């Protein structure tokens, strides 16, 4: 599904290059559930952002669904991720001014989905996540776990092939975290969605099918469970 070849990312400060990612090679197949682990500052988020095309590598080749991402223009790249990737953030990043319903609906608006179809899709996902009763609430009226649930629902609404989650449970208590992990697992098993998550928790990492350990911008180990 995606493939990174010799990907590097560095920042230059005062002439010296600081490598955040150093010649990383990574292939992820359709249907995998990958957990990325590593100490703080090891480049996990950077890697995830590059995969999600929010950030660009300084060097290297990158393929997504067989498209050479490093050759694409801005517009093509955003079209690609808009249709295929859903993002889930540690800080949820719901839009404060929008209700639960509207937050979930927003990606569809940007994909020019017709109103009737939008309604059906959103109703469907609200139902599936058991949050119909909360659809008119604003994010600040929800608990952290609920917010993250909405964040995931929003990421899933446009039926992406890949979910990228950067420490999705970082701000949640362990019970809420477990629920989210179960949800990912279910999505991965039942719907065949590919999931890549960054996590600090050994336990959460176990939900996946592969664990990648990052250290100083390099892949230290890759363990298939």
């Amino acid at each position, binding site marked *: 599904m995606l493939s990174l070849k010799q990907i590097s990312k560095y920042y230059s400060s005062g002439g010296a290059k600081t490598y955040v990612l150093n010649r990383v090679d990574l292939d992820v197949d359709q249907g995998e559930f990958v957990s990325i682990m590593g100490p703080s500052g090891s480049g996990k988020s950077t890697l995830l952002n590059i995969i999600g095309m929010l*950030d660009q590598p300084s060097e290297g080749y990158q393929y997504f669904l067989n498209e050479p991402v490093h050759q694409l223009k801005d517009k093509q790249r955003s079209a690609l991720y808009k249709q295929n990737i859903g993002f889930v953030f540690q800080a949820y990043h719901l839009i404060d001014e929008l209700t639960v319903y509207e937050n979930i609906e927003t990606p569809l608006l940007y994909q020019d989905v017709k109103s009737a179809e939008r309604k059906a899709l959103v109703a469907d996902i609200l139902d599936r996540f058991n949050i119909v009763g909360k659809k008119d609430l604003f994010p600040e009226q929800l608990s952290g776990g609920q917010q993250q649930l909405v964040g995931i629902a929003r990421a899933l609404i446009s039926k992406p092939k890949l979910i990228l989650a950067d420490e999705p449970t970082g701000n949640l208590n362990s019970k809420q975290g477990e629920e989210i992990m179960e949800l990912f697992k279910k999505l991965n098993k039942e719907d065949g969605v590919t999931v890549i998550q960054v996590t600090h928790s050994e336990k959460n990492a176990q939900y996946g099918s592969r664990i990648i350990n990052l250290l100083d911008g390099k892949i230290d180990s890759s363990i298939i469970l």
Partner: protein
Amino acid sequence: MLKNYIKTAWRNLWKGRVFNLLNLVGLAVAIACCTLIFLTVFYEFTYDRFHTKLDNIYQIYTVSNRAEGAEVTSSVPEPLTPALKAEYPAVKYMTRSADAGALIKYGNKELDENLHFVDEDFLKMFTFPLIEGNKNNVLSGLNNVVITQATAKALFGEEPALNKTVLLNINNVQQPFIVSGILEDISRHSSIEFDLLVRFEHYPNYAANINAWENRTHIAMIEFNNGYDPASFTSQLTPFVKKHFAPSIEILKKDGAKPNEKGDIFWLDIAPFSNNHFATNLGGVEGNPVNKTYPVSLIVIGCFILIIACINFINLSVARGFTRSREVGVRKTLGASKGQLLIQFWIETIMVCLASMVVGLLLCMALINQFKAIFKSRISLSMLLDPVTLFGIIILFLLVTAIAGFYPALMMVRYKTVAVLKGNTASTKPGKLRNTLLVVQFSLSTLLIICTIITWQQINYLQNKPLGYNKTEVLSIPVSGGLIGEKALKLMRNELKNHAEVASVTGAYMNMGRGNDGSSRSSILGFNFGDKEIRTHIQRVDYDYLKTLDIKLLEGREFNPDFAGDSTAVIINETMARQLGTKNVLGSFVPMYDSVAKVQVVGIVKDYNFRSLHEDIAPLTLTMDKHYEINYIFVKVKPGNLVASYDAIKKSWNRQYPNTEFEGSWINENTERQYLNERRLSGIFVSGAVIAIVISCIGLLAISIMIVLQRTKEIGIRKVLGSSVGGIVLLLSMDFVKLVLLASVIAFPIAWWLMNNWLQSFAYRITIQWWVFALATLLAILLAFITISFQSVKAALANPVKSLRSE
């Protein structure tokens, strides 16, 4: 999608309501001011536009290339119009025009009305629609009078007016006239204003002047044939001028006039009537022309205000957008394209602009009456519905939303997704642009403050400068309404002799300053003296002139009834004496009227400013020559109760002339009236400065709120480390104070240049002083500092533990 945009826009606006309210208020104030200003400008520039043949109509004027410069006057001799019409086929219609006050009488009703003497062509040229009567022959009868609807109503009530006989008293002669036409009331937007029209043949001394090419008594307008290009008309007039104006040219030559580069000493020229409202340099036109400087400076101020408001809008939107960077990032990850984000933010801008527009127009309605009073503007809000203004407003609206809305939107769209999601916006700080815009804003504000101070200083100077005569205790009474000055003076002298409060009475040809009658006269005489050409202003006076006005006599004596020869004697001022140059000027005989006997100089007075302070003191000759009428009576009263004296004099006048209005005014009122234009300009500057400062400070306030928000953590840390409240306030304010200082420095040379140019139009003027600039800067800094302090003090006093925890 649009619905969604509007919904989110509304919620976003509501969330940032403090900001948006400040933004809205600033813009609304600007819109209100600009609407009033631009309506006024529009009004001034569309004067007389209702004449359908406006572009074909021209006013004729004469130019004499005198030794001291070209002298332009629009007064022309009576035979000019018939001769031009006869000799130039391109002249389709032509009319002479002069006005006077006249009493119109019907039954026992009598009205004092404004009368215009015109030729038959007048109504064919100008678009004054007739309600009753026939346009082609309405003035064909010598004793026809055309009246306006308002006059008809006042005189006849509901009775039909057409073909009624009325009595007209013109120049003390009463004659019957037949009402041959009734005109629609004249638009207030017209230079030509009158209540009654009669044929030019009734103009006083018409018969005497019928062939007098040397007597210029009125103005004249030409309508050319359709399609005729009048560009070459002036040169075609050369033979005409040679033929008819030879004696005038001879006189000019004798007075030392020099031919111009084309070899002309005297020529006729034409000026488009469409520019009539701004024709202050033609030496007499229809109506009261205004100097173009004023509408133009209004436009400039209007643009300043608009620029300042737009800058505010941009700065506030950018600052506000800064708090929404995360939203931009999130939306991008959800698949929003740049275009979609741009539209979203732009819609918010348009909503704020629309709201400002509504509030601005409401404000405009609330302020319009005061504005009209201050700026002597005759605008009305209904002008907003005029298609041209409506179109202008829409264009302006789009322009403002485009400039003020697009840039901040673009700014926001450009945020780096990853960075803003991390909560890291330091790299996108809009510091430079914001600072530049703030500098522009405060430059304009400081500029206006400086202009305000300097115009105020100059006006103050004009008001307080001693003019060399008594202007506070002397009353000037115009003799008008067909009265004979000499007679009126004699009557008033007798009448006031017994009044204890009256010190002395005299009369004169020229007024001092500009009186309630609004007219100004001057008479200049040129003659040869030795080998020199001498030119002098002539002032016809009566006995006690120097005494009444407290003019200082340097040598000789004042006119005195005990000296028989005084009707041919003159008193001159110092400048005139200097010009004559001979020793022993006093007592010498001067050949003032080339043909007649020489006149003797019996007195020399100290120079006094008999003209406005725009001009230097010119040579002046006081005479008792009966050829000049007495137009003004001057009455000096004893100091004490001026109000009571005024009332007493007014009462005496009304006893003598129950039918003629008393138009007396104190001379200091008259001299102040000479500087109405300056006052108006100063008013424009003050209002502009106040508004500019208010809007700029609103912007600064919002930005300081923003800055304090951004630096909460830093402030907290500094406090924990032991910084004092004062230290923190200073830290937060210093950056802005520096910007305001820079802005002032930029404004200095521009202000100096502008004001120096303006001051050149005064012969008597202040010198620009450095402390004006310092004061303006200090004022701007003080206002900026106070504005910022609201926020910075609050931030400095806040509990640091709280602000650090909230991070």
